[in-house]
């Protein structure tokens, strides 16, 4: 197939809204949504500030099966408030992960996939978003004792703020070329540290450090896939088949402190330096 034909044959995942992403990942494209938009559990805080709410608060909780095993997918809608998490959306994710862990304690092997498309805390709900994200962290750490927790960052919003820490806690991460993963958003870094430190409008610069390719090449993500819905689903299934990792990435403090000890912070970082130090195959 020629390059153009291959591109046309592709079924983009990045372009899909949250619910369509869920459909693309579940067996038989079938799922049951919990607290669906018709229940209208909306943010009690946005309305008070004159901000338009959304009927699902930007989070889809979907139960179904992946590779024949019970699964719950938590999908964040990047198009609503930048995928930011407030009290309701945050509680949907945390609460569903808590129930998945409880399932496992009762012998039901429920697994979870989180579709990250988020700038982190919704500042209009500040401390309640932060609290919910702490509970999401807690629930991922609990659940991953039983089943691998898989995060997907497809783009184009990326994954930032407290939710980048949640991604860091996942057993496995799947990324595309459109993905970005970082703690602080580019504009915030530029505001806090200056344009010399971080030029948020220089897209190649931003992607060279936080883009999906770089994160996968440096072991901060596990699988890099092209933007194609069936490839994404295959990647998720393959990671579930791999089972729980021997060591969770976030528990690898020995590895990271060892590698970082060889970096002199007097030198500004470049993507090449990071690759040399963190590349999974690099000599230790």
């Amino acid at each position, binding site marked *: 197939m020629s390059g153009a034909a291959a591109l046309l044959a592709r079924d983009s995942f990045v372009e899909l809204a949250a619910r369509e992403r869920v459909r693309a990942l579940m067996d038989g494209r079938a799922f049951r949504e919990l607290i669906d938009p018709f*229940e209208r559990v909306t943010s009690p805080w946005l309305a008070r500030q004159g901000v338009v709410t959304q009927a699902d608060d930007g989070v889809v909780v979907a139960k179904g099966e992946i590779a024949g095993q019970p699964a719950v997918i938590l999908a964040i809608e990047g198009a609503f408030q930048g995928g930011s998490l407030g*009290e309701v959306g945050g509680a949907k994710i945390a609460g569903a992960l*808590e*129930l998945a862990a409880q399932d496992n304690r009762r012998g039901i092997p429920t697994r979870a996939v989180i579709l990250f498309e988020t700038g982190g805390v919704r500042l209009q709900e500040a401390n309640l978003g932060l*609290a919910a994200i*702490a509970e999401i*962290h807690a629930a991922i750490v609990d659940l991953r004792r039983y089943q691998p927790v898989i995060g997907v960052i497809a783009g184009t919003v990326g994954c930032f703020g407290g939710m980048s820490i949640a*991604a*860091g806690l996942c057993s496995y991460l799947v990324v595309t070329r459109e993905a970005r993963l970082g703690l602080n958003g580019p504009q915030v870094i530029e505001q806090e540290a200056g344009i010399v430190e971080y030029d948020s409008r220089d897209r190649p610069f931003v992607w060279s450090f936080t883009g999906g390719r770089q994160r996968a090449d440096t072991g901060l993500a596990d699988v890099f896939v092209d933007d194609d819905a069936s490839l994404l689903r295959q990647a998720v299934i393959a990671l579930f088949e791999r089972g729980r990792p021997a060591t969770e990435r976030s528990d690898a*403090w020995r590895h990271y402190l060892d590698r970082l000890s060889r970096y002199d912070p007097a030198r500004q970082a470049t993507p090449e330096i990071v690759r040399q130090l963190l590349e999974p195959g690099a000599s230790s």
Partner: protein
Amino acid sequence: MNIETTSRGATWLAALTDGAAPLTGYPPSVQVVDGALADQRCRYVAVLPDAANAWPRARTGEIGVIEGWELARAVHEVIDADRAAPKRAIVAVVDVTSQAYGRREEAFGIHEALAGAAGAYAQARLAGHPVIALIVGKAMSGAYLAHGYQANRIIALNDAGVMVHAMGKAAAARVTMRSVEDLERLAAEVPPMAYDISSYATLGLLWQLLDVDSADRPCAVDLADARHALIVALDDIRADPSPDLRSRLGGPNRGASSLVREKLLAQW
């Protein structure tokens, strides 16, 4: 040491541990002291400013890449050492201005380092270690997520200098495209947006708000009260059969968090 340049975190860490020497092998920005609480072994952990930090964006009390992984190490050491022993308590003394903002930080995956710290505290809690956070100053955003927010119980000093928030005022105003004045007006009306600790207390996330005479220079009574609060928290955790965070639910200004969980359970 000049009192004006001593951070609250340093002051309270030293006071709670009777000035015991921190463990060697950790960087100056992460201080780890093995001491006691109610005659039981206890590890105290604090992140402190280090003007000589080799990472230039992490010199004033921020949690950077190194701090995140060193916190993870400090907590995993306890989990590993106590695998077949009584689970000692861990007290996080919290006074953290923010996560570090910089190119080096993003380049080397500061998000993963903070996940290392948050994950370590969560695993300690799940393994049965009582984890208590004592907020004596700022508990901001990603730094608080990495150091304190995974605790079984959170205690905060009732003091104007104690602040919990997702983002500093100036930056939050810019991101939400409001003036600082508008932000302050909204913060006064919307409890989760407020910057003061008494508004935060209405969210139900704190186990206790502790009155002190001076958060900057605690007197003997302040210290005794803080110790007492930590001991009562310790007993409360030991008596609690669940090592999760459900004790944070039920606050007057956090009803939706419970409603969502009730609905999820009913529909699960």
